[in-house]
């Protein structure tokens, strides 16, 4: 490669050349090449984002047969909402519930008059604290639609039962819903997730397997039919589909959501939540679909700092340990202050760790 000779023209350059010639050349990790080839050989790599036709508007409008990418976008959007909700509950506890929209409006007003302050956040991880106190996060959780979802009985029930299970189920193969969500969801975020899936065989295989779940298929079919009516006004037109394609192409090079899914798809509690019956009930609601269609939501899940925080290992560990559930119960029983739920998470995390240690002790 290198037929030229380097000659120093002055003492500074001579010093640099000596140093560069003596610098260590590293050997790549032994598993680098095998890891690459494993990813390329995995079924997930057939996801299609290396196929130029894959992201075309025509392709996405097709009513596909079996695990379409659009249906996966639906699921991933739901996943993002779930993570969002976890973050929300971790800080504020459960919102007060009430019948119908009155409770929601009241809750929204209450929230708008109260800013989250540092003292309200007692999670130990500073990165999470930073994210949860960010403007993006504040704007998102002050959104009435978001609050309507979080205040719903179904959603609370779902969130309280973060049991261990495999990943999501088969999405609705409904082109209308898929297109609506294409327009609603942040293009960069979706592209990042798809890019991640295309390179991570474990996550994609898990997702593929879960896509066969009849339960989730049923739930999302119902969601699709509602969406056709409720969110019809937000459907993509041809122009926005083209714009999305361009955005996807640009965004696929880089997205913080890769990190999110990297953590989330390996987190049993998180994926269990997505398969939870109550959660599936919750996602049938019009309000939930409205949330997905909200630009604020799209912006939030595209926010790097936000995603870095919620995909943090410590944060997911809290959910995995059952701490989230404990915090939710604590909040629902009347101790619903942000500080209380943060403390509950820490307490439950400690308890879970102690339980694990006990289990490991020889009897």
């Amino acid at each position, binding site marked *: 490669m290198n037929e030229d000779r380097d000659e120093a023209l002055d003492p500074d350059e001579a010093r640099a050349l000596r140093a560069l010639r003596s610098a260590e050349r590293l050997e790549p990790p032994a598993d*680098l090449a095998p890891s*690459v080839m494993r990813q390329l050989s995995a079924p997930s790599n057939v996801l299609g984002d290396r196929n130029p036709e894959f992201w075309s508007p025509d392709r996405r409008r097709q009513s596909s047969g079996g695990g379409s990418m659009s249906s996966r976008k639906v699921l991933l959007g739901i996943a993002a909402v779930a993570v969002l909700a976890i973050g929300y509950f971790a800080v504020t506890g459960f919102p007060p519930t009430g019948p119908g929209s009155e409770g929601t409006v009241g809750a929204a007003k209450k929230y708008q008059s109260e800013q989250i302050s540092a003292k309200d956040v007692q999670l130990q991880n500073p990165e999470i604290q930073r994210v949860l106190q960010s403007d993006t996060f504040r704007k998102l959780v002050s959104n009435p639609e978001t609050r309507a979802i979080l205040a719903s009985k179904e959603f609370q029930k779902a969130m309280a039962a973060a049991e261990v299970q495999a990943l999501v189920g088969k999405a609705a193969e409904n082109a209308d819903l898929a297109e609506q969500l294409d327009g609603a969801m942040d293009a960069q975020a979706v592209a990042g997730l798809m890019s991640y899936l295309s390179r991570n065989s474990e996550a994609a295989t898990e997702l593929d397997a879960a896509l066969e779940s009849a339960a989730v298929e049923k739930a999302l079919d119902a969601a699709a039919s509602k969406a056709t009516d409720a969110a019809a006004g937000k459907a993509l037109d041809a122009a926005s589909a083209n714009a999305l394609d361009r955005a996807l192409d640009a965004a696929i090079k880089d997205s913080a959501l890769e990190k999110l899914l990297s953590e989330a798809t390996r987190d049993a509690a998180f994926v269990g939540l997505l398969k939870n019956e109550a959660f599936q009930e919750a996602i049938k609601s019009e309000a939930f679909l409205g949330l997905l269609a909200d630009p604020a939501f799209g912006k939030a899940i595209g926010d790097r700092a936000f995603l870095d925080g919620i995909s943090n290992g410590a944060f997911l560990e809290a959910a995995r340990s059952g701490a989230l559930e404990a915090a939710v119960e604590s909040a629902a029983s009347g101790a619903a202050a942000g500080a209380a739920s943060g403390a509950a998470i820490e307490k439950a995390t400690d308890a879970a760790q102690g339980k694990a240690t006990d289990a490991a002790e020889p009897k």
Partner: protein
Amino acid sequence: MVDGDPDEALVARCLRGEVEAFEPLVARYQRVLYNAAYRLLGDREDARDVAQGALVKAYEKLASFDPRYRFFSWIYRIVVNEALNTRSRRRPDSPLVADLPGSGAGVEDALAARERKDCVQAALLRLSSDDREVIVLRHFAELSYAEIGETLGVAEKTVKSRLHEARQRLGRILEPESLQ
């Protein structure tokens, strides 16, 4: 012999759906890409992730590769982009510059102690991205001036002048006084 096949032939086979044809390309370039990523980022784990991600991404985007250019130049740009993305994702409190040798250490001593502190790497990380990149391409990717020019999209004489200036700046950072 597959390993001896030119890059273009291997790329063509990949595009016909032969995934295994990518393996010789990985074997051929993984070392130089990993070293380049390490010298750009200063972290071995990050370098591994970047090299791996870039290789996978290169395969996925192979259809967009223009065979009029060298395969390495193309994949190297992917590594650089991945490295920049990695840097931008770093936490604000994450130090970019590695520790330099302690006060009073002369450059010769510092170079002798590079196994412990790798002051070359620390000095590289003090350079601008442009300076660092041209040095990495020349001294760690071991490209010719013409190849660097192709990779960076500049004329060969521009490469020479950039390299000279970048090495001067690196040399000044490596002065004993700068290391104190």
